[in-house]
Protein backbone atom coordinates (compact mmCIF):
# COMPACT_ATOMS: atom_id res chain seq x y z
CA UNK A 1 0.00 0.00 0.00
CA UNK A 2 1.56 3.27 -1.02
CA UNK A 3 1.35 6.42 1.07
CA UNK A 4 -0.70 9.23 -0.47
CA UNK A 5 0.74 12.73 -0.79
CA UNK A 6 -1.03 15.94 0.15
CA UNK A 7 -0.18 19.08 -1.77
CA UNK A 8 -0.44 22.59 -0.40
CA UNK A 9 -3.37 24.21 -2.18
CA UNK A 10 -2.82 27.56 -0.44
CA UNK A 11 -1.03 28.77 2.67
CA UNK A 12 -3.92 30.29 4.63
CA UNK A 13 -2.99 29.60 8.24
CA UNK A 14 0.42 29.99 9.81
CA UNK A 15 0.93 28.34 13.19
CA UNK A 16 3.68 29.17 15.67
CA UNK A 17 5.02 26.71 18.25
CA UNK A 18 5.71 29.87 20.18
CA UNK A 19 6.37 28.30 23.58
CA UNK A 20 8.11 25.26 22.14
CA UNK A 21 7.12 22.13 24.05
CA UNK A 22 7.44 23.87 27.42
CA UNK A 23 4.31 23.99 29.53
CA UNK A 24 3.33 24.68 33.11
CA UNK A 25 1.11 21.60 32.96
CA UNK A 26 1.83 18.03 31.90
CA UNK A 27 -1.57 16.84 30.78
CA UNK A 28 -1.98 13.13 30.37
CA UNK A 29 -3.62 13.55 26.96
CA UNK A 30 -1.14 16.03 25.49
CA UNK A 31 -0.35 14.75 22.02
CA UNK A 32 3.00 16.52 22.02
CA UNK A 33 3.82 15.55 25.63
CA UNK A 34 4.50 19.09 26.76
CA UNK A 35 5.75 19.61 30.30
CA UNK A 36 7.91 21.99 32.34
CA UNK A 37 10.97 20.03 31.28
CA UNK A 38 10.26 19.09 27.66
CA UNK A 39 12.71 21.00 25.49
CA UNK A 40 12.20 19.21 22.20
CA UNK A 41 11.25 22.62 20.86
CA UNK A 42 12.41 25.81 22.58
CA UNK A 43 10.56 29.10 22.87
CA UNK A 44 10.58 31.37 19.84
CA UNK A 45 11.78 34.95 20.22
CA UNK A 46 10.20 38.05 18.72
CA UNK A 47 12.81 38.38 15.97
CA UNK A 48 12.24 34.82 14.74
CA UNK A 49 8.47 35.27 14.75
CA UNK A 50 8.82 38.56 12.90
CA UNK A 51 10.92 36.95 10.18
CA UNK A 52 8.21 34.37 9.56
CA UNK A 53 5.47 37.03 9.64
CA UNK A 54 7.29 39.01 6.98
CA UNK A 55 7.65 35.94 4.81
CA UNK A 56 4.00 35.07 5.43
CA UNK A 57 2.96 38.47 4.11
CA UNK A 58 4.70 37.79 0.80
CA UNK A 59 2.95 34.40 0.56
CA UNK A 60 -0.55 35.74 1.23
CA UNK A 61 -1.18 34.10 4.62
CA UNK A 62 -4.65 34.89 5.97
CA UNK A 63 -4.27 34.38 9.74
CA UNK A 64 -1.88 33.26 12.47
CA UNK A 65 -2.28 30.88 15.43
CA UNK A 66 -0.02 30.61 18.46
CA UNK A 67 0.37 27.48 20.54
CA UNK A 68 2.88 25.54 22.63
CA UNK A 69 3.27 24.40 25.33
CA UNK A 70 1.76 27.36 27.09
CA UNK A 71 2.23 30.51 24.98
CA UNK A 72 2.12 32.89 27.94
CA UNK A 73 5.25 31.29 29.40
CA UNK A 74 7.06 33.02 26.55
CA UNK A 75 8.41 36.30 27.96
CA UNK A 76 8.05 37.98 24.52
CA UNK A 77 4.45 36.83 24.07
CA UNK A 78 2.68 40.18 24.23
CA UNK A 79 5.18 41.85 21.90
CA UNK A 80 4.77 38.88 19.56
CA UNK A 81 0.99 39.28 19.60
CA UNK A 82 1.32 42.95 18.83
CA UNK A 83 3.46 42.12 15.78
CA UNK A 84 1.02 39.40 14.68
CA UNK A 85 -2.01 41.67 15.07
CA UNK A 86 -0.38 44.26 12.84
CA UNK A 87 -0.22 41.55 10.19
CA UNK A 88 -3.64 39.90 10.50
CA UNK A 89 -6.17 38.02 12.64
CA UNK A 90 -4.54 36.17 15.51
CA UNK A 91 -5.50 33.32 17.82
CA UNK A 92 -3.76 32.00 20.93
CA UNK A 93 -4.33 28.52 22.37
CA UNK A 94 -3.80 28.63 26.12
CA UNK A 95 -4.51 26.54 29.20
CA UNK A 96 -5.77 29.70 30.91
CA UNK A 97 -3.48 29.48 33.95
CA UNK A 98 -1.53 32.66 33.30
CA UNK A 99 -4.45 34.93 32.52
CA UNK A 100 -4.43 37.28 35.50
CA UNK A 101 -6.52 40.48 35.38
CA UNK A 102 -3.59 42.75 34.43
CA UNK A 103 -2.53 40.55 31.55
CA UNK A 104 -6.12 40.32 30.30
CA UNK A 105 -6.39 44.10 30.34
CA UNK A 106 -3.19 44.41 28.32
CA UNK A 107 -4.45 41.80 25.84
CA UNK A 108 -7.68 43.68 25.53
CA UNK A 109 -5.68 46.82 24.72
CA UNK A 110 -3.76 44.95 22.01
CA UNK A 111 -7.04 43.79 20.55
CA UNK A 112 -8.55 47.28 20.58
CA UNK A 113 -5.55 48.82 18.87
CA UNK A 114 -5.74 46.34 15.98
CA UNK A 115 -8.16 46.22 13.05
CA UNK A 116 -8.11 42.44 13.35
CA UNK A 117 -9.66 40.00 15.79
CA UNK A 118 -7.64 38.56 18.66
CA UNK A 119 -9.03 35.22 19.81
CA UNK A 120 -8.02 33.58 23.07
CA UNK A 121 -8.83 29.88 23.16
CA UNK A 122 -8.89 28.29 26.58
CA UNK A 123 -8.91 24.50 26.97
CA UNK A 124 -11.36 22.66 29.19
CA UNK A 125 -11.41 18.88 29.13
CA UNK A 126 -14.13 18.26 31.65
CA UNK A 127 -16.95 20.36 32.95
CA UNK A 128 -16.19 19.52 36.56
CA UNK A 129 -12.95 19.98 38.49
CA UNK A 130 -12.80 16.23 39.02
CA UNK A 131 -12.86 15.38 35.31
CA UNK A 132 -10.68 18.26 34.17
CA UNK A 133 -8.04 17.89 36.88
CA UNK A 134 -7.76 14.14 36.32
CA UNK A 135 -6.24 15.03 32.95
CA UNK A 136 -4.56 18.33 33.74
CA UNK A 137 -3.53 18.19 37.38
CA UNK A 138 -4.99 19.37 40.68
CA UNK A 139 -6.27 22.94 40.73
CA UNK A 140 -6.13 23.40 36.95
CA UNK A 141 -9.90 23.66 36.56
CA UNK A 142 -10.38 26.45 39.07
CA UNK A 143 -7.53 28.46 37.63
CA UNK A 144 -8.71 28.01 34.04
CA UNK A 145 -12.18 29.22 35.00
CA UNK A 146 -10.62 32.20 36.71
CA UNK A 147 -8.64 32.96 33.54
CA UNK A 148 -11.84 32.75 31.49
CA UNK A 149 -13.58 35.13 33.89
CA UNK A 150 -10.68 37.57 33.73
CA UNK A 151 -10.78 37.56 29.93
CA UNK A 152 -14.49 38.18 30.00
CA UNK A 153 -14.19 41.06 32.47
CA UNK A 154 -11.53 42.65 30.27
CA UNK A 155 -13.95 42.56 27.34
CA UNK A 156 -12.39 39.60 25.54
CA UNK A 157 -14.72 36.74 24.71
CA UNK A 158 -12.71 33.50 24.78
CA UNK A 159 -13.39 30.40 22.74
CA UNK A 160 -13.55 27.32 24.95
CA UNK A 161 -11.73 24.34 23.42
CA UNK A 162 -13.01 20.97 24.52
CA UNK A 163 -11.10 17.79 23.77
CA UNK A 164 -13.15 14.66 23.39
CA UNK A 165 -11.17 12.83 26.07
CA UNK A 166 -14.41 11.77 27.63
CA UNK A 167 -16.66 10.04 25.15
CA UNK A 168 -19.68 12.06 26.21
CA UNK A 169 -17.98 15.45 25.62
CA UNK A 170 -18.73 15.28 21.92
CA UNK A 171 -22.41 14.36 22.22
CA UNK A 172 -25.18 16.91 21.89
CA UNK A 173 -25.82 16.74 25.64
CA UNK A 174 -22.09 16.95 26.33
CA UNK A 175 -21.70 20.10 24.28
CA UNK A 176 -24.75 21.58 25.97
CA UNK A 177 -23.13 21.04 29.38
CA UNK A 178 -20.16 23.11 28.26
CA UNK A 179 -22.40 25.85 26.89
CA UNK A 180 -24.19 25.87 30.24
CA UNK A 181 -20.89 26.03 32.11
CA UNK A 182 -19.75 29.02 30.05
CA UNK A 183 -23.11 30.73 30.47
CA UNK A 184 -22.77 30.16 34.22
CA UNK A 185 -19.61 32.30 34.14
CA UNK A 186 -21.71 35.21 32.91
CA UNK A 187 -20.58 34.91 29.30
CA UNK A 188 -23.54 35.84 27.13
CA UNK A 189 -21.99 35.00 23.77
CA UNK A 190 -20.61 31.49 24.38
CA UNK A 191 -18.12 30.08 21.86
CA UNK A 192 -17.03 26.45 21.75
CA UNK A 193 -14.51 24.46 19.69
CA UNK A 194 -14.42 20.65 19.85
CA UNK A 195 -11.24 18.64 19.21
CA UNK A 196 -10.79 14.87 18.92
CA UNK A 197 -7.79 13.28 20.65
CA UNK A 198 -4.63 12.26 18.84
CA UNK A 199 -3.29 8.96 20.13
CA UNK A 200 0.33 10.07 20.14
CA UNK A 201 2.66 11.58 22.74
CA UNK A 202 1.40 11.35 26.29
CA UNK A 203 -2.06 10.37 25.04
CA UNK A 204 -0.59 7.16 23.62
CA UNK A 205 0.38 6.23 27.16
CA UNK A 206 -2.72 7.51 28.90
CA UNK A 207 -5.09 5.62 26.72
CA UNK A 208 -4.00 3.74 23.64
CA UNK A 209 -1.56 4.12 20.79
CA UNK A 210 -2.57 3.60 17.20
CA UNK A 211 -2.91 0.17 15.71
CA UNK A 212 -1.21 -0.73 12.49
CA UNK A 213 -4.37 -0.57 10.37
CA UNK A 214 -4.90 3.04 11.32
CA UNK A 215 -2.93 4.46 8.41
CA UNK A 216 -3.90 6.07 5.14
CA UNK A 217 -3.14 4.55 1.79
CA UNK A 218 -3.53 5.77 -1.76
CA UNK A 219 -6.91 4.02 -1.99
CA UNK A 220 -8.31 6.22 0.80
CA UNK A 221 -7.92 9.34 -1.35
CA UNK A 222 -11.32 11.04 -1.44
CA UNK A 223 -12.82 12.14 -4.73
CA UNK A 224 -12.11 15.79 -4.05
CA UNK A 225 -8.52 15.10 -2.93
CA UNK A 226 -7.06 15.93 0.46
CA UNK A 227 -8.20 19.55 0.69
CA UNK A 228 -10.10 18.87 3.91
CA UNK A 229 -6.79 18.28 5.75
CA UNK A 230 -5.18 21.26 7.41
CA UNK A 231 -1.80 20.34 5.92
CA UNK A 232 -3.29 21.39 2.55
CA UNK A 233 -3.56 24.98 3.75
CA UNK A 234 -1.34 25.54 6.78
CA UNK A 235 2.20 25.19 8.15
CA UNK A 236 3.79 25.27 11.61
CA UNK A 237 6.77 27.52 12.32
CA UNK A 238 8.98 26.54 15.27
CA UNK A 239 12.27 27.66 16.75
CA UNK A 240 14.02 25.04 14.62
CA UNK A 241 12.37 25.33 11.25
CA UNK A 242 8.98 24.81 9.65
CA UNK A 243 6.91 21.69 10.21
CA UNK A 244 4.05 20.40 8.09
CA UNK A 245 1.25 20.91 10.64
CA UNK A 246 0.55 21.58 14.33
CA UNK A 247 0.22 17.87 15.07
CA UNK A 248 3.46 16.30 13.89
CA UNK A 249 5.90 18.66 15.61
CA UNK A 250 7.44 15.80 17.57
CA UNK A 251 8.23 13.91 14.39
CA UNK A 252 11.58 14.89 12.89
CA UNK A 253 10.14 13.79 9.55
CA UNK A 254 7.40 16.40 9.93
CA UNK A 255 9.98 19.10 9.33
CA UNK A 256 9.83 20.48 5.80
CA UNK A 257 12.42 23.24 5.75
CA UNK A 258 13.90 26.34 7.32
CA UNK A 259 11.76 28.98 5.66
CA UNK A 260 8.11 28.90 4.58
CA UNK A 261 9.18 29.04 0.96
CA UNK A 262 10.85 25.64 1.50
CA UNK A 263 7.58 24.05 2.51
CA UNK A 264 5.25 24.71 -0.42
CA UNK A 265 5.65 21.21 -1.84
CA UNK A 266 3.89 17.87 -1.15
CA UNK A 267 3.92 15.90 2.11
CA UNK A 268 3.40 12.13 2.52
CA UNK A 269 0.47 11.24 4.80
CA UNK A 270 2.37 8.37 6.37
CA UNK A 271 1.63 8.95 10.06
CA UNK A 272 -1.16 7.37 12.06
CA UNK A 273 -2.22 10.83 13.24
CA UNK A 274 -3.06 11.52 9.58
CA UNK A 275 -5.64 8.78 9.89
CA UNK A 276 -7.36 10.68 12.73
CA UNK A 277 -7.27 13.91 10.73
CA UNK A 278 -8.95 12.21 7.81
CA UNK A 279 -11.49 10.08 9.66
CA UNK A 280 -12.54 12.77 12.15
CA UNK A 281 -12.14 15.72 9.81
CA UNK A 282 -9.86 17.54 12.23
CA UNK A 283 -8.88 21.13 11.95
CA UNK A 284 -7.08 22.81 14.84
CA UNK A 285 -8.41 26.19 13.63
CA UNK A 286 -11.34 27.69 15.46
Amino acid sequence: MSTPNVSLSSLDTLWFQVAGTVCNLACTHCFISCSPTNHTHEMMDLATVRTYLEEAATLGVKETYFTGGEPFLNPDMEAILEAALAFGPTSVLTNGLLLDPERCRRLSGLSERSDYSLDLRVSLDGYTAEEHDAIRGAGAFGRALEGIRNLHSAGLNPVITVTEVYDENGSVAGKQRFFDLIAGLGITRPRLKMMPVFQIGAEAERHAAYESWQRLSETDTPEGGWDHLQCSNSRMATGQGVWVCPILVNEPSGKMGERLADTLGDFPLGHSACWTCHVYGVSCRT
Partner: protein
Amino acid sequence: MSNRVPEDDEVKRERAADKAAERARLVAHRGLATWGEKLVPLGDFRRAAAESGSVLTPAQRAAAGEALLAQCEDSTPIEGPYDRIAVCGGIYNNHLALAAFLDRARAEGAEALYCLGDLGGFGPSPEKVWPLLVDAEVRVNQGNYEQSLASGREDCNCGYTDPRDNHFARLSYEYTARGCSSDFKSWMGQLPARRRVLVGDRELLLVHGSPRRVNEFLFETATSTAYLEGLLDQEGADGILCTHSGLHWHRRLPSGRDLVNVGVLGRPANDGTPRVWYAVLESTSDGLGVHLTPLDYDHQALAAEMRSEGLPPEFIATIEGGWWTTCLEILPAKERGRGRF
Protein backbone atom coordinates in the same frame (compact mmCIF):
# COMPACT_ATOMS: atom_id res chain seq x y z
CA MET B 1 -14.21 7.18 20.73
CA SER B 2 -16.28 4.12 20.60
CA ASN B 3 -13.71 1.42 19.81
CA ARG B 4 -12.56 0.91 23.38
CA VAL B 5 -12.71 -2.56 24.84
CA PRO B 6 -13.92 -2.76 28.45
CA GLU B 7 -11.26 -4.10 30.86
CA ASP B 8 -11.70 -5.81 34.18
CA ASP B 9 -10.75 -3.86 37.27
CA GLU B 10 -7.45 -5.50 38.02
CA VAL B 11 -6.08 -5.03 34.53
CA LYS B 12 -7.27 -1.45 34.74
CA ARG B 13 -5.41 -0.84 37.99
CA GLU B 14 -2.21 -2.36 36.65
CA ARG B 15 -2.37 -0.36 33.50
CA ALA B 16 -3.01 2.80 35.49
CA ALA B 17 0.06 2.14 37.66
CA ASP B 18 2.21 1.49 34.57
CA LYS B 19 0.94 4.62 32.97
CA ALA B 20 1.61 6.70 36.07
CA ALA B 21 5.19 5.44 36.19
CA GLU B 22 5.68 6.18 32.50
CA ARG B 23 4.16 9.55 32.97
CA ALA B 24 6.52 10.37 35.83
CA ARG B 25 9.46 9.40 33.65
CA LEU B 26 8.15 11.57 30.87
CA VAL B 27 7.65 14.59 33.07
CA ALA B 28 11.03 14.22 34.77
CA HIS B 29 13.08 14.13 31.62
CA ARG B 30 15.55 16.79 30.70
CA GLY B 31 17.78 16.55 27.70
CA LEU B 32 15.30 14.07 26.28
CA ALA B 33 12.98 14.73 23.39
CA THR B 34 9.55 13.28 22.88
CA TRP B 35 9.77 11.72 19.46
CA GLY B 36 6.42 10.33 18.45
CA GLU B 37 5.67 7.84 21.20
CA LYS B 38 9.29 7.43 22.38
CA LEU B 39 11.74 9.34 24.52
CA VAL B 40 15.08 9.93 22.81
CA PRO B 41 18.10 12.12 23.50
CA LEU B 42 17.33 15.67 22.49
CA GLY B 43 20.43 15.78 20.28
CA ASP B 44 19.13 12.84 18.24
CA PHE B 45 15.82 14.57 17.63
CA ARG B 46 17.53 17.77 16.57
CA ARG B 47 19.89 15.91 14.25
CA ALA B 48 17.08 13.91 12.66
CA ALA B 49 14.97 17.03 12.25
CA ALA B 50 17.85 18.88 10.64
CA GLU B 51 18.38 16.02 8.23
CA SER B 52 14.76 15.59 7.29
CA GLY B 53 14.32 19.34 6.84
CA SER B 54 14.22 19.03 3.09
CA VAL B 55 15.44 22.46 2.17
CA LEU B 56 14.56 23.00 -1.47
CA THR B 57 17.08 24.38 -3.92
CA PRO B 58 16.34 27.93 -5.05
CA ALA B 59 15.10 26.55 -8.37
CA GLN B 60 12.74 24.04 -6.70
CA ARG B 61 11.54 26.73 -4.36
CA ALA B 62 10.70 29.07 -7.21
CA ALA B 63 8.89 26.27 -9.03
CA ALA B 64 6.82 25.34 -5.97
CA GLY B 65 5.86 28.98 -5.45
CA GLU B 66 4.83 29.40 -9.05
CA ALA B 67 2.85 26.17 -9.05
CA LEU B 68 0.91 27.50 -6.08
CA LEU B 69 0.12 30.73 -7.88
CA ALA B 70 -0.66 29.12 -11.21
CA GLN B 71 -3.48 26.92 -9.92
CA CYS B 72 -6.07 29.35 -11.07
CA GLU B 73 -6.77 29.01 -14.76
CA ASP B 74 -9.83 31.06 -15.34
CA SER B 75 -11.66 31.16 -18.63
CA THR B 76 -14.59 33.18 -17.28
CA PRO B 77 -15.79 35.62 -19.99
CA ILE B 78 -15.63 39.31 -19.13
CA GLU B 79 -18.90 41.25 -19.02
CA GLY B 80 -19.25 45.01 -19.48
CA PRO B 81 -17.76 47.55 -19.40
CA TYR B 82 -20.32 49.39 -17.34
CA ASP B 83 -20.28 52.75 -15.62
CA ARG B 84 -22.40 51.58 -12.73
CA ILE B 85 -23.61 48.23 -11.44
CA ALA B 86 -25.56 47.17 -8.35
CA VAL B 87 -24.69 43.94 -6.58
CA CYS B 88 -26.58 42.14 -3.85
CA GLY B 89 -25.55 39.17 -1.74
CA GLY B 90 -27.57 36.41 -0.07
CA ILE B 91 -31.34 36.85 -0.40
CA TYR B 92 -32.41 34.06 2.00
CA ASN B 93 -35.96 34.01 0.55
CA ASN B 94 -36.44 37.70 1.41
CA HIS B 95 -38.46 38.59 -1.70
CA LEU B 96 -39.59 41.91 -0.22
CA ALA B 97 -36.02 43.13 0.28
CA LEU B 98 -35.18 41.86 -3.21
CA ALA B 99 -38.05 43.85 -4.73
CA ALA B 100 -36.91 46.95 -2.85
CA PHE B 101 -33.35 46.42 -4.10
CA LEU B 102 -34.52 46.12 -7.71
CA ASP B 103 -36.47 49.38 -7.50
CA ARG B 104 -33.66 51.26 -5.84
CA ALA B 105 -30.92 49.95 -8.13
CA ARG B 106 -32.88 50.90 -11.24
CA ALA B 107 -33.58 54.35 -9.83
CA GLU B 108 -29.88 54.76 -9.12
CA GLY B 109 -29.07 54.10 -12.75
CA ALA B 110 -27.39 50.70 -12.46
CA GLU B 111 -26.78 49.30 -15.96
CA ALA B 112 -26.55 45.71 -14.76
CA LEU B 113 -27.75 43.92 -11.65
CA TYR B 114 -25.94 41.05 -9.96
CA CYS B 115 -26.68 38.67 -7.12
CA LEU B 116 -23.84 36.65 -5.59
CA GLY B 117 -25.91 33.65 -4.50
CA ASP B 118 -27.63 32.08 -1.46
CA LEU B 119 -31.17 32.66 -2.64
CA GLY B 120 -32.75 30.48 0.05
CA GLY B 121 -32.87 29.79 3.75
CA PHE B 122 -34.19 31.79 6.69
CA GLY B 123 -37.13 33.67 5.12
CA PRO B 124 -40.57 32.61 3.78
CA SER B 125 -41.90 31.22 0.48
CA PRO B 126 -38.68 30.23 -1.35
CA GLU B 127 -40.08 30.23 -4.86
CA LYS B 128 -41.09 33.90 -4.81
CA VAL B 129 -37.63 35.29 -5.52
CA TRP B 130 -37.27 33.38 -8.80
CA PRO B 131 -39.61 35.39 -11.09
CA LEU B 132 -38.29 38.62 -9.60
CA LEU B 133 -34.72 37.67 -10.51
CA VAL B 134 -35.64 36.43 -13.98
CA ASP B 135 -37.86 39.40 -14.90
CA ALA B 136 -35.27 41.93 -13.79
CA GLU B 137 -32.52 40.00 -15.63
CA VAL B 138 -30.41 39.78 -12.51
CA ARG B 139 -27.22 37.82 -13.19
CA VAL B 140 -26.93 35.33 -10.39
CA ASN B 141 -23.88 33.44 -9.09
CA GLN B 142 -24.25 30.01 -7.56
CA GLY B 143 -23.90 30.00 -3.78
CA ASN B 144 -23.49 27.00 -1.50
CA TYR B 145 -27.26 26.90 -0.96
CA GLU B 146 -27.88 26.57 -4.71
CA GLN B 147 -25.16 23.93 -4.93
CA SER B 148 -26.76 21.88 -2.18
CA LEU B 149 -30.34 22.28 -3.45
CA ALA B 150 -29.45 21.54 -7.06
CA SER B 151 -27.51 18.42 -6.13
CA GLY B 152 -30.23 17.15 -3.79
CA ARG B 153 -28.11 17.24 -0.62
CA GLU B 154 -30.06 16.57 2.53
CA ASP B 155 -28.56 19.47 4.48
CA CYS B 156 -26.80 22.74 3.89
CA ASN B 157 -23.60 21.17 5.24
CA CYS B 158 -22.91 24.03 7.65
CA GLY B 159 -21.52 21.68 10.29
CA TYR B 160 -22.01 23.91 13.32
CA THR B 161 -20.63 22.92 16.72
CA ASP B 162 -23.60 24.33 18.57
CA PRO B 163 -26.51 21.87 18.50
CA ARG B 164 -28.85 24.88 18.56
CA ASP B 165 -27.25 26.36 15.43
CA ASN B 166 -27.45 23.00 13.70
CA HIS B 167 -31.10 22.70 14.59
CA PHE B 168 -31.96 26.06 13.01
CA ALA B 169 -29.73 25.52 9.98
CA ARG B 170 -31.43 22.21 9.27
CA LEU B 171 -34.87 23.63 9.81
CA SER B 172 -34.44 26.46 7.32
CA TYR B 173 -32.73 24.24 4.76
CA GLU B 174 -35.52 21.68 4.86
CA TYR B 175 -38.16 24.39 4.63
CA THR B 176 -36.43 25.88 1.58
CA ALA B 177 -35.82 22.50 -0.08
CA ARG B 178 -39.54 21.65 0.28
CA GLY B 179 -40.59 25.02 -1.11
CA CYS B 180 -38.48 24.98 -4.31
CA SER B 181 -39.82 23.33 -7.45
CA SER B 182 -37.55 20.98 -9.36
CA ASP B 183 -37.47 23.51 -12.22
CA PHE B 184 -36.18 26.16 -9.85
CA LYS B 185 -33.58 23.75 -8.51
CA SER B 186 -32.30 22.82 -11.94
CA TRP B 187 -32.12 26.51 -12.82
CA MET B 188 -29.90 26.91 -9.73
CA GLY B 189 -27.74 24.04 -10.92
CA GLN B 190 -26.70 25.84 -14.10
CA LEU B 191 -25.67 29.11 -12.46
CA PRO B 192 -21.98 30.00 -12.79
CA ALA B 193 -19.73 30.07 -9.71
CA ARG B 194 -17.87 33.20 -10.81
CA ARG B 195 -18.18 36.15 -13.13
CA ARG B 196 -15.80 38.84 -14.33
CA VAL B 197 -17.21 42.29 -14.88
CA LEU B 198 -15.56 45.49 -16.10
CA VAL B 199 -16.61 48.66 -14.32
CA GLY B 200 -14.82 51.43 -16.17
CA ASP B 201 -11.36 49.99 -16.62
CA ARG B 202 -11.46 47.91 -13.41
CA GLU B 203 -11.92 44.18 -13.79
CA LEU B 204 -13.94 42.79 -10.89
CA LEU B 205 -14.21 39.14 -9.95
CA LEU B 206 -17.64 38.21 -8.57
CA VAL B 207 -17.77 35.12 -6.36
CA HIS B 208 -19.97 33.78 -3.57
CA GLY B 209 -17.62 33.04 -0.65
CA SER B 210 -14.12 33.59 -1.96
CA PRO B 211 -12.34 32.84 -5.22
CA ARG B 212 -11.04 29.68 -3.54
CA ARG B 213 -14.08 28.16 -1.92
CA VAL B 214 -17.78 28.75 -2.32
CA ASN B 215 -18.23 28.46 1.45
CA GLU B 216 -15.26 30.47 2.69
CA PHE B 217 -16.23 33.28 5.06
CA LEU B 218 -14.47 36.57 4.47
CA PHE B 219 -14.98 38.68 7.59
CA GLU B 220 -13.37 42.06 8.01
CA THR B 221 -11.42 41.35 11.20
CA ALA B 222 -10.44 37.80 10.20
CA THR B 223 -8.90 38.44 6.79
CA SER B 224 -5.38 39.79 6.45
CA THR B 225 -4.54 42.36 3.81
CA ALA B 226 -1.67 40.11 2.65
CA TYR B 227 -4.18 37.35 1.92
CA LEU B 228 -6.38 39.62 -0.18
CA GLU B 229 -3.42 41.00 -2.16
CA GLY B 230 -2.38 37.39 -2.81
CA LEU B 231 -5.87 36.43 -4.05
CA LEU B 232 -5.98 39.42 -6.39
CA ASP B 233 -2.51 38.60 -7.77
CA GLN B 234 -3.56 35.03 -8.33
CA GLU B 235 -6.80 35.99 -10.05
CA GLY B 236 -5.36 38.88 -12.02
CA ALA B 237 -8.30 41.06 -10.96
CA ASP B 238 -8.59 44.65 -9.72
CA GLY B 239 -11.25 43.84 -7.19
CA ILE B 240 -13.21 40.97 -5.64
CA LEU B 241 -16.91 41.12 -4.76
CA CYS B 242 -18.25 38.48 -2.39
CA THR B 243 -21.03 37.73 0.14
CA HIS B 244 -21.67 34.52 2.20
CA SER B 245 -20.55 35.83 5.61
CA GLY B 246 -23.64 38.05 5.96
CA LEU B 247 -21.78 41.23 6.95
CA HIS B 248 -20.83 43.98 4.48
CA TRP B 249 -17.38 45.57 4.43
CA HIS B 250 -14.91 47.16 2.06
CA ARG B 251 -11.14 47.41 2.17
CA ARG B 252 -9.07 49.43 -0.26
CA LEU B 253 -5.74 47.60 -0.26
CA PRO B 254 -2.31 49.24 -0.31
CA SER B 255 -2.06 48.25 -3.99
CA GLY B 256 -5.18 50.33 -4.72
CA ARG B 257 -7.31 47.25 -5.39
CA ASP B 258 -10.53 46.45 -3.55
CA LEU B 259 -12.26 43.74 -1.58
CA VAL B 260 -15.98 44.35 -1.23
CA ASN B 261 -18.23 42.07 0.75
CA VAL B 262 -21.59 43.33 -0.46
CA GLY B 263 -23.45 42.03 2.60
CA VAL B 264 -26.83 40.32 2.28
CA LEU B 265 -30.44 41.28 1.56
CA GLY B 266 -31.74 38.33 3.54
CA ARG B 267 -31.24 39.52 7.09
CA PRO B 268 -29.99 42.65 8.88
CA ALA B 269 -26.31 43.16 9.60
CA ASN B 270 -26.44 42.34 13.33
CA ASP B 271 -26.54 46.05 14.15
CA GLY B 272 -29.89 46.44 15.88
CA THR B 273 -31.67 47.94 12.87
CA PRO B 274 -33.89 46.11 10.36
CA ARG B 275 -31.97 47.53 7.37
CA VAL B 276 -30.19 45.24 4.92
CA TRP B 277 -27.24 46.04 2.63
CA TYR B 278 -26.07 45.92 -0.98
CA ALA B 279 -23.30 47.57 -3.03
CA VAL B 280 -23.11 49.98 -5.93
CA LEU B 281 -19.89 50.02 -7.93
CA GLU B 282 -19.18 52.84 -10.33
CA SER B 283 -16.45 54.09 -12.56
CA THR B 284 -14.91 57.32 -11.30
CA SER B 285 -12.19 59.59 -12.62
CA ASP B 286 -9.67 57.98 -10.27
CA GLY B 287 -10.82 54.37 -10.61
CA LEU B 288 -13.55 52.53 -8.75
CA GLY B 289 -16.22 54.05 -6.53
CA VAL B 290 -17.56 51.66 -3.91
CA HIS B 291 -20.81 52.48 -2.14
CA LEU B 292 -22.09 50.07 0.49
CA THR B 293 -25.74 51.01 0.76
CA PRO B 294 -28.33 50.37 3.47
CA LEU B 295 -31.83 49.48 2.33
CA ASP B 296 -35.11 49.85 4.16
CA TYR B 297 -37.93 47.58 3.09
CA ASP B 298 -41.24 46.39 4.52
CA HIS B 299 -39.71 44.12 7.14
CA GLN B 300 -42.96 43.99 9.11
CA ALA B 301 -44.75 42.44 6.14
CA LEU B 302 -41.95 39.89 5.89
CA ALA B 303 -42.18 39.10 9.60
CA ALA B 304 -45.94 38.60 9.24
CA GLU B 305 -45.43 36.22 6.34
CA MET B 306 -42.79 34.30 8.29
CA ARG B 307 -45.23 33.97 11.16
CA SER B 308 -47.95 32.61 8.94
CA GLU B 309 -45.46 30.16 7.43
CA GLY B 310 -44.65 28.90 10.93
CA LEU B 311 -40.99 29.89 10.81
CA PRO B 312 -39.15 30.08 14.16
CA PRO B 313 -39.67 33.14 16.38
CA GLU B 314 -35.85 33.42 16.62
CA PHE B 315 -35.67 34.21 12.89
CA ILE B 316 -38.53 36.68 13.08
CA ALA B 317 -36.85 38.46 15.99
CA THR B 318 -33.79 39.02 13.78
CA ILE B 319 -35.86 40.46 10.93
CA GLU B 320 -37.65 42.82 13.32
CA GLY B 321 -34.89 43.69 15.77
CA GLY B 322 -31.79 43.56 13.62
CA TRP B 323 -29.74 41.30 15.93
CA TRP B 324 -28.62 37.84 14.84
CA THR B 325 -30.01 35.17 17.12
CA THR B 326 -28.72 32.00 15.42
CA CYS B 327 -25.68 30.69 13.56
CA LEU B 328 -23.48 33.06 15.54
CA GLU B 329 -20.50 30.79 15.90
CA ILE B 330 -19.11 31.71 12.50
CA LEU B 331 -18.42 35.25 13.73
CA PRO B 332 -14.85 36.27 14.64
CA ALA B 333 -14.28 37.81 18.07
CA LYS B 334 -14.82 41.42 17.05
CA GLU B 335 -17.88 40.93 14.87
CA ARG B 336 -19.38 38.73 17.59
CA GLY B 337 -18.69 41.38 20.20
CA ARG B 338 -20.62 44.02 18.26
CA GLY B 339 -23.86 42.03 18.29
CA ARG B 340 -26.24 41.47 21.15
CA PHE B 341 -25.96 37.63 21.32
